């Protein structure tokens, strides 16, 4: 008998055949990441949780449309992105989506409490992220916190790779300037 770890692709195939337990296992592997992605672009815990549930429900309903199980992550995040922006539009239909800011004051900050980083730095980072445009912030979240490649980000955001890079690098320039004093103090 050969033991091997059950991979996402196995679970996706089983879930596609109607195995709810396999899908639940898949959810347990991805729910925290999807929740944190949504938390950082919506800035509201309740919204993030509701949206996460909606995302996985939609994913279950449309799992058969996923042709390549290896592309599950960008496919799932594409659903999450669409759900979040759909919510933004419903709430403020008169405002252009690119101009929308997270509603809540909580920007997904989990500072202190055993973090190896000083509280001051975490607060500075949260503040600096808030200064970015929603598109720049989402690019930073997908690249830095979720670890996607540029091509995957382009698929999730439905835009060219050049646009993704431009958003991310513009955001990093701003963050570098904003966080430089804090880093200097932390280093000293």
């Amino acid at each position, binding site marked *: 008998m050969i033991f091997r770890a059950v991979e996402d692709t196995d679970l996706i195939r089983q879930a596609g055949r*109607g195995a709810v337990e396999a899908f639940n296992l898949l959810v347990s592997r991805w729910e925290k990441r999807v929740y944190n992605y949504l938390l950082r672009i919506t800035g509201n815990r309740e919204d993030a949780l509701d949206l996460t549930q909606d995302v996985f429900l939609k994913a279950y309903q449309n799992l058969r449309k996923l042709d390549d199980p290896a592309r599950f992550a960008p496919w799932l995040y594409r659903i999450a992105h669409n759900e979040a922006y759909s919510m933004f539009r419903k709430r403020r239909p008169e405002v252009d989506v690119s101009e929308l800011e997270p509603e809540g004051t909580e920007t997904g900050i989990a500072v202190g409490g055993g973090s190896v980083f000083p509280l001051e730095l975490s607060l500075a980072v949260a503040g600096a992220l808030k200064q970015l445009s929603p598109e720049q912030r989402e690019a930073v979240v997908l690249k830095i916190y979720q670890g996607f490649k540029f091509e995957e980000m382009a698929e999730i955001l439905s835009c060219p790779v050049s646009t993704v890079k431009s958003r991310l690098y513009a955001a990093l320039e701003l963050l570098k300037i904003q*966080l430089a004093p804090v880093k200097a103090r932390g280093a000293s």
Partner: protein
Amino acid sequence: MSCSPFDLRDYVFQELSATERKQVDVHVKGCQNCREECERLRLTEAALFSLRDEEIPQRIAFVSDQVFEPSAWRRAWAGFWGSAARLGFASAAMLSVALVVFAVVRPAIQTPGPVAASQNGKAVSVSSAEIEQQIQAAVDRAVASSEARQRDKFEQAVAEIRQQDLKERQQLTRFADAAIDMSTRRNLLVERSSYDFPRADKGGQQ
């Protein structure tokens, strides 16, 4: 401005191929500016990591409900129609089957000419003569019918002209009679007017 052969940000964020990465590795070792730029980018990235992921407040799980769960047949059906490739294949297969069935089932087209010619040359000549005869007869009938129609129309037109002519003659006769009558009356009036009535002054002179 970076002097690196490739974008240092792509290098730091692991977006370069292995070969490109090696080239930048070599460059960065010898270039202090690029080394410092890479360091700044890594510090920014590290600072961003100071924000930790949160735990999800409520775990998500789905329950299989036999009432709402679609049947295996329905899932297969939905899955079939959900795939464009399968749909295309099914369409092509149905078209192929339809073509084969049509080729097998369709009635043979009747072509008596060539068959008769191959079996009996005389039959073809008779058949052609008959056809010619029939065509000629049809043409004759059509011509006769057309001529008859033309003749009828012509006779009708002649009759109308004659009748019109007769009417005009009668009218002319009436006019002539009236003219004669008028002339006669005029002569009579002239005769009467030329009658020399006796006048008082004229008679006095005489």
